């Protein structure tokens, strides 16, 4: 994309207003339906790439989107005190990691990552935003100047990397060859 001679790209942003979240999980439901195969054929919030970190007794409701996978746990943790409420160390973290079962496919254990519902044909806005009638999630796009080559990490990239780390490249390739012949 070019704008006045400068290379630009669109950054997609989901703005989260935690005060408006009621914890209904409509975002999780919509996400899991959209990413089901065939599309919308099942509901399973365990497969969702968005998760409401909720603790009603602490008045904490924080929707977080799945980000990159990491093989190692954090070497240190942060907890946050905001307006007198203490948020635990993982509340705002989008990673799928060894320390919790969030953002991992419940069957394969492979990491899940939010893709902002990119699809063909495209959807107007990510499904979680569309489902949130309370305004806790809003979608915006902004154009930013590109300063370095952009690479797109897909679900499949993430999954393959994890499989290779776990089983080794040779075993993964052998399996791909064997399965493709079946």
């Amino acid at each position, binding site marked *: 994309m070019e704008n006045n001679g400068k290379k630009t790209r669109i950054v997609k942003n989901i703005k989260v207003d935690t005060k408006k979240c*009621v914890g209904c999980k409509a975002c999780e439901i919509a996400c899991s339906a959209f990413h089901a195969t065939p599309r919308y*054929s*099942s509901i399973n*919030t365990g497969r969702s790439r968005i998760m409401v970190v909720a603790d*009603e007794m602490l008045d904490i409701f924080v929707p977080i989107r799945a980000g990159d996978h990491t093989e190692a746990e954090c070497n240190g943790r942060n907890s946050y005190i905001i307006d007198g409420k203490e948020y635990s160390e993982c509340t705002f973290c989008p990673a799928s990691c060894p320390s919790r079962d969030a953002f991992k496919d419940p069957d394969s254990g492979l990491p899940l990552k939010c893709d902002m519902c990119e699809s063909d044909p495209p959807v107007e806005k990510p499904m979680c935003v569309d*489902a949130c*009638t309370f305004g806790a999630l809003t979608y915006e796009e902004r154009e930013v100047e590109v300063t370095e080559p952009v690479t797109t990490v897909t679900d499949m990239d993430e999954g393959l990397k994890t499989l290779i780390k776990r089983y080794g490249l040779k075993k993964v390739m052998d399996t791909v060859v064997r399965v493709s012949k079946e």
Partner: protein
Amino acid sequence: MRYCETGFQLEVDLSKGSIDKVETDPRDTALYLGGHGYNAKILYDRVPPETDPWSPDNLLIFGNGLLNGTCVPGANRVSVNTIAPVNGFFGHSLMGGFFGAEMKQAGYDRIIIKGEAPDLVYLAIHNDKVEIRDATHLRGKGMLDTQRMIQEELGDKRAWVAAIGPAGEHRCITASIDCGNSSAARTPGPVMGAKKLKAIAIRGTKDVNLAHPKEMWEMCSRLRKELDANPNIGDWMATDEDDSFHHNNFAWGNARVRRKTFWSEGLEERWRNLKYDHMNRWTGCWNCPKACHNLIQWPNRRRFSYKCYGKDTYHMASFQELDFTYEILPVAMDLGFDSYSTPQTIAFGLELLDAGILTEADFPGMPADIRGRFYYLLQKMAFREGIGDVLANGVSGAAAIIGKGAEKFDHNTVKKFEQLPIKLGKLNPAYFLMIATGEDMAITQIEGSFPQDPIADPELREEFIKKWIAVPDKKFHDWFRQWVKRDELPDQAMVEITDWNECMHYLDDSLGFCGFVSSFRGQFGGTTGYHVWNMPDIITHGTGMEFDKDRLWECFQRNRTLIRALNNRRGLRRSMERPPEDHWAVRNEAYEQQLLTKYYDFKGWTFDAIPTKETLERLSLGWVAEDLIKRGVLTGDEPTALNDPRAKNEKE
């Protein structure tokens, strides 16, 4: 593959320590849908009428509505059913929130608990991994500590924990089962205590499949936006601070005193500030675009959430103000008490003290002030100490034990069940039928589709009718047009209004819909979210079973008739179908009996309020007819009520 449902139920026998995952017959789903209808079938099959509700042979069933755990907005209610210790009849309670959806994602349509554990246990479910775990360290713990401790033990903060508090452990009749912001109030709590089951923790990560994905998603997305935009559904008490209706019209104390001029603008402003100065946010249930729960943090109390009329019950029973409810409700809820019947039971006990039937000696150490007295009795009841051991049996149960005229103070129960504290002037025929005959035992679980009051202005009335698409038949439009005075419509109209009101609750409770987006909200504004015209398509696209209005209506009739037969088998008869004697100041016994006969006849029941053999067979319940005949409840030759010789007067 099964759609919307998992096709499995979890059966746990706490006496044997056995756990079985049992595949179910899809033909039963087609007949009973799910929720309380399906649960009633299981209770009929497996709990003989001789069974004592307290015995290990009684069942406690957490049954998902058929549409729970799917993308259908507002479908999240679990029917918790058992044989109720309070009166020996079908016990029915509903729990919204997230427990049902999580259960379905764990792979179960329902959980059936049988037996009695040797000591306190809890059930831990994570998909196919199910364990009965020791819970003796949780004995006496409140709801919040129980939920948190179990989540920590399981290392899973996303597990939903449905638990009883000390009230349930001690088998208090007014105990509830709580899970997050939701609770199953009355009847199931004490049974869970009797089974020594402290809690069920559940976590699920399996798919809930949909038969026609694209159509289902499009329909549900549209419905979600419609429900969100519809001002006539949801709980108005969550946002509308004008609560003059309950305070000026309902009776305070032990359902005694109406304070018709209680409400004022100044009071409303003061209470509004009280609420919003202490409120954190509204919270909602699984996939519902309405957020009906108010999350409150009161000084020196743990956070708690409430909804609806739970906001009023404690301060109205004690003649206090809202601050008292906010102060005592978190304590009472943590003890595991229902907020409807518990304050009434306390007010009843204190009234007996005022009347001299109970004496100061029955209340050793009780504070002099009314607020202190409520706390005192809550604790006594929760742990069954002293007079609390008596009051823990509920109003009717306690009255029977106390005697000495206490029975006369038990003036607001139907079939031993505490009712809303409503005392009015002139008989309302449809409400008479609903209160007298309703199997759900509480008017809020029966009323809701037909408006409570006529609209006098013809233009406004026509405007209302134009938008009133929920009616199952145009005749309801006609009756509404001719309706001027609340109590004046043909008997046939009163009977069919009752029938339609019942129908919507029965459909909600078997499908999983919350009454606030469906059955309860049709009476206000006429544009409720769900009705017999849009429910069939949802079922069809969700499950793959072809449904239309007639087939759906038959499911309601089947479930209604089955639950009636279950209660008949346990002794329910016409003579028990009476509202509280002082519900209306002006009564007309002959007219009321005439209404009952016409209602029974319309339902295809006998003069004694039992479904006839023909009615049962028409609804594919021939097996129930055989059982009732074998047990001598029916001969099989009875006519419907109006054709009974005893109905001579009614026909005239």
